[in-house]
């Protein structure tokens, strides 16, 4: 089969959908990768944080202020506070243990259950949806296909988050502390960095990113208590492929998986949902540090 016969199969809308799926995945995965890169904690509850961000945003929009952007910020900050509280009360106790990695994974898995049930208790088992904010709530026709403008906006927002985070990590004082602590924790502590406080701060930031991801993705998905369990697995795939701890890796990994989810079913009819897992296995075996950059990039 020649290339020219393959190309027409890929419509513009497939690409846009793939990129917007990728943007959503990036917003889920980037905080997970940040937390792992600095703290060495693989936060199983990150999908729960994402889901919580979506729920809080929906609740604020329908009960408090009818402004999506304000609600999204409130949702993100609320999740940040929850995350910081969990780090401060539970995860902090495990850093010094011999097998801390697995204990952290199990404890954060415990929080998966707690968050899932709490969300179900507060908001019920049904699913909610929300219209995109008015500014972007119109259809775009481009190259013969039509899609909601919010899909494009989400791609822009994901890029903005990536650039903002990169500037924050590389150009600010706090960012330099984060980088320093991530590459050598003991040396940073000796140089006077308050490591425990920094860890809580980074966990807060990572949780805010998860909450923001859930909030911004809310118009493009139905929000139900099962959401957290679904997205955490996608987030694991993305950070493994991009490289645990790498933020640019998370972006590339997310876009790859997004495109795979959008285009995969057109090329392989059976077993298409298995491909991302197969990719994850292969990357773990061949390049456990991920395809892009090493830890701490």
């Amino acid at each position, binding site marked *: 089969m020649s290339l020219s016969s393959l190309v027409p199969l890929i419509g513009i809308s497939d690409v846009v959908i793939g990129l917007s799926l990728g943007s959503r995945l990036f917003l889920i995965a980037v905080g997970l990768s940040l937390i792992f890169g600095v703290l060495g904690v693989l936060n199983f509850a990150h999908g729960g944080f994402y889901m919580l961000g979506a729920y809080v945003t929906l609740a604020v929009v329908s009960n408090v202020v009818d402004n999506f952007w304000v609600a999204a910020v409130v949702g993100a900050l609320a999740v940040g506070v929850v995350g910081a509280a969990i780090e401060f009360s*539970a995860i902090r106790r495990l850093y010094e243990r011999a097998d801390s990695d*697995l204990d952290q994974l199990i404890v954060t898995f415990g929080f998966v259950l*707690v968050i899932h049930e709490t969300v179900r208790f507060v908001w019920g088992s049904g699913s909610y949806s929300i219209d995109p904010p008015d500014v972007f709530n119109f259809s775009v026709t481009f190259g013969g296909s039509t899609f909601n403008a919010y899909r494009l906006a989400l791609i822009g927002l994901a890029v903005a988050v990536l650039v903002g985070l990169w500037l924050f990590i590389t150009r600010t004082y706090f960012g330099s502390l984060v980088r320093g602590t991530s590459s050598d924790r003991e040396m940073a502590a000796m140089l006077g960095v308050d490591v425990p406080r920094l860890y809580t701060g980074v966990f807060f930031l990572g949780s805010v990113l998860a909450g923001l991801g859930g909030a911004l993705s809310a118009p493009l998905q139905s929000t139900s208590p099962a959401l957290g369990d679904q997205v955490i*697995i996608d987030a694991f*795939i993305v950070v493994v492929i991009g490289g645990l701890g790498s933020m640019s890796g998370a972006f590339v990994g997310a876009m790859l998986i997004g495109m795979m989810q959008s285009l995969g079913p057109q090329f392989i009819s059976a*077993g298409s949902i298995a491909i991302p897992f197969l990719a994850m296995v292969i990357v773990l*075996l061949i390049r456990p540090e991920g395809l892009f950059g090493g830890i701490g990039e």
Partner: protein
Amino acid sequence: MSATDTGGRVSRFGSAVAEGWTRERFGLIGALVLVLVAFAPPFQVYLFTDFLVVALFALGFNLLYGYTGLLSFGHGLFYAGGAYGIAIVLRDLGPVIADVVGAGISPLVTFLVGGVVGLVLVVAVAVPVGWLSVRLEEIYFALITLAFGMLGYSLIIQDPAGLTNGTDGVIVLLGTVDLGGVSLRVGGRRIYYAISAVTVVAATYGVWRVVNSPFGTVCKAIRESPDRAVALGIDVGHHRWMTFIVSAAVVGVAGVLRAGLASVASPGLTHWSTSAIAVIATVIGGATYFYGPIVGAFIFLYIRWAISRFPALEAYWELFFGALLIAVVLFFKQGAVGGLMLIRDRLVGDDADEPSDDDARTTDGDGS
């Protein structure tokens, strides 16, 4: 004064009980419980069978986690492997086997053949999956097993080979054995309980033998210090691989039993949330103890059942186990069995103070 006397008597009684906790008596009590359960009301028989199956699942999982330190989030793959193995044999080979051995005994023979096929299937999957997975450690091992499990889940759901019947799963019909006028429904609660109990006890004994063999000792050495094990000339990778395969096989047996109990082999068995049940049961019970996963499975199923008695709480039982899991890992890593050991040690410890009665009293006074 009188209160202190009672306290002394209680502690003396306690130490007498603790002294009697020998393995033989434990075994005898266990056997008695297993027999008595057979006469319990039908639902209790079902619940106990469920407990036995989950216990074997967790026991198999913990062979890897507790004895080599590798945390798998993908053992649902082997649980499902056993379940689908027997379900597909029952569906596709049942009539063939009936032709060969006669219709009377065929359900039992088919069940045995299916069990063996399930086990062989699980081992056939575990050999390559384990070989690849044990190259990684800690978080990376957890992630690759999770990925293998979800890979299996995807394939079962999408069913490219036309074997697994997609999201509906494969119905398991165990049939009725008919021998000279005596008919026994293999899937009947009490019959199936008997099959499960015998299988689980035999498998547990097998695992116990493995753990206490030279092989098991080497595994424990690897768990304590992989580097030192290497320095002693132990092939760590090979031992981890072998443990992975044995662990998967035990989980596969549990999967075979699960299929018959649930009357269906469903794709949910491969999902990571099923693998997590083994993690929850093992951690709550105490991963460093042989019986930890069994006690954990007991707590898991019976507390879940107890919670389900209260309609207001029924839907939120996961909340309880999430909180319990967090509390155990943070504050009491030894789990429930560790707690029982502590209580026993305290009772036996009081026994040591027995000759000096005054000391015992002081301790009692301090304690209250």
